[in-house]
């Protein structure tokens, strides 16, 4: 597999505080990669170094094949960045922001207008494009910033907490938009987040970061699967008998009987639901309800860091 971002033991020290402690990151090309961690975990410092804004204290890293220290300028030309906090000028219009960005990133004059129209189309600013940014809603500002990061057709888009402070609907629409970009423009997306749901729904791969270190990196599915147990709850008549029957199945790790419900812990629960229903039918039990619960990324996070993400 080709990695578009790779770091080797990259570190950042501020005076006597080690913000990032020897991180090894491998981001596959054309993926959506999430760095998940609480505030203060070092996520922003890590991606600031990758964006060449901060100079690493030690270790090395490449983005798009360019060294982030020696070829900083080449890196900058090939990436788009959306900062955690707003980086817009209230008194310029959306279109002017895009024009300015295109000029600064050396988009040739003859294709500039076309690019701007493309991006405006994509971010659906509509007729607001020629109004001052101060009249925009939070979601529009965010879309403008993301669109701006794409004007020069970067290979990698860095998003630092892209949906921080947005309402749930806007958040969903930004997610869909990021997925669309990733799919249609072949852009690799590296984002940081402290929203479990965001990492889970959006990312192909997630690196869990805590106290300046990456503790674990894998796809959200694998991370959760590694915790093992999905929980299947079956409501059935003659529950005690069915409980006995289930205990004898070898895919069941643990089973509990609670009133008319049987709870079992299994791996890959989604594959087992039909199996269990069929088993009940063969033995003439009447199944009233089946519920499947996966472990959440929150559970994963707690397992690896020993604490919830909000209690950093």
């Amino acid at each position, binding site marked *: 597999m080709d990695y578009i971002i790779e770091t080797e033991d990259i570190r950042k020290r501020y005076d006597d505080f080690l913000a990032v402690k020897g991180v090894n990151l491998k981001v596959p090309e054309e993926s959506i990669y999430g760095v998940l961690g609480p505030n203060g975990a070092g996520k*922003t*410092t890590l*991606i*600031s170094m990758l*964006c*060449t*804004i*901060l*100079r690493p204290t030690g270790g090395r890293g490449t983005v798009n094949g360019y060294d982030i220290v020696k070829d900083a*300028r080449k890196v*900058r*030309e090939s990436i788009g*960045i959306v*900062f*955690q*906090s*707003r*980086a*817009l*000028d*209230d*008194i*310029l219009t959306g279109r*002017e922001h895009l024009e*300015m*960005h295109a*000029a*600064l*990133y*050396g988009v040739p004059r003859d294709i500039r207008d076309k690019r701007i129209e493309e991006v405006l189309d994509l971010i659906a600013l509509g007729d607001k494009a020629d109004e001052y940014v101060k009249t925009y809603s939070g979601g529009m500002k965010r879309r403008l910033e993301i669109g*701006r990061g794409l004007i020069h057709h970067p290979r990698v888009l860095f998003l*630092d907490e892209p949906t921080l402070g947005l309402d749930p609907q806007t958040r969903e629409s930004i997610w869909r938009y990021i997925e669309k970009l990733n799919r249609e423009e072949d852009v690799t997306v590296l984002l940081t987040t402290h929203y479990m749901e965001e990492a889970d729904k959006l990312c192909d791969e997630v690196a869990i970061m805590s106290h300046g270190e990456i503790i674990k990196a894998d796809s959200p599915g694998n991370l959760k699967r590694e915790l093992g147990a999905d929980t299947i709850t079956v409501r059935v008549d003659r529950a005690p008998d069915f409980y006995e029957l289930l205990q004898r199945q070898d895919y069941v790790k643990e089973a509990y009987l609670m009133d008319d419900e049987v709870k079992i812990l299994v791996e890959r629960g989604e594959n087992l639901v039909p199996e269990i229903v069929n088993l009940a039918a063969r033995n003439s039990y009447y199944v009233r309800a089946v519920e499947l619960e996966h472990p959440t990324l929150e559970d994963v996070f707690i397992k690896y860091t020993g604490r919830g993400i909000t209690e950093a």
Partner: protein
Amino acid sequence: MAEIEGIYTIWLREMKRFFRYRSRIVTSIVTPLLWLIIFGTGLGAAVRFGGVPGGYKAFIYPGIIGQTVLFTSIFSGVSVIIDRQYGFLKEILVAPISRESMVVGKALGISTASMIQAAILLALSFIVGITMSPQCFIVSMVIALIISMGLGGLGLVIAAFTDSMEGFNLIMSFIVLPIFLLSGALFPITGLPAWLQGAVYINPLTYAVDALRFTILRESVLPLGVNMVVITIFAVVTVLIAAFLFNRKEQNIM
């Protein structure tokens, strides 16, 4: 080529901001007129000022042009602090153009804004009874260009050390007002007590005001050439220092 485009882009934004803040343009013209008409007439009536034809009002006219350039330049330079607070500075700092180009683009934008204001004031010279010749206008504009680059650079240097606009009042009291008052804009710089004389001569604006006074009133303490050399050196040095500071300063700007 990319650098020229970068400089132009930064300059263009500065211009857009300048023309969109209408109230700022209005005040920047009204304030000097108040100085000229009220202060100039008032004090001119109280003191006998034989040095210059046209009297005290005419004497301070070049000084008030200098003052306008001073305020606009320093505050435009310091406005980088606002860009930093509102986050827009990040967008510029991560762009693949050199920090030198960013500083030069900004300084050129600042001096264009200052020159527009200087041009308006020069066109209003009849208010103080001075007729403006084309040569006089052009030389004055060149002086305004050079000194505004220098003062804009100074504003950028201040901005590089200041994180929030809370420092704004300090900048006003300890930098802008002293530069104005010590420039000889309002009084002749000859025959002053030694301590004041010294302070006046280390002030770069003094040389610009003296140069403007020579150009407009044919009267100056130092030769025009000396004044021009001093303000040119000042402009080059402040812009270089500003570029150096922005280059060196590592900021966690995410």
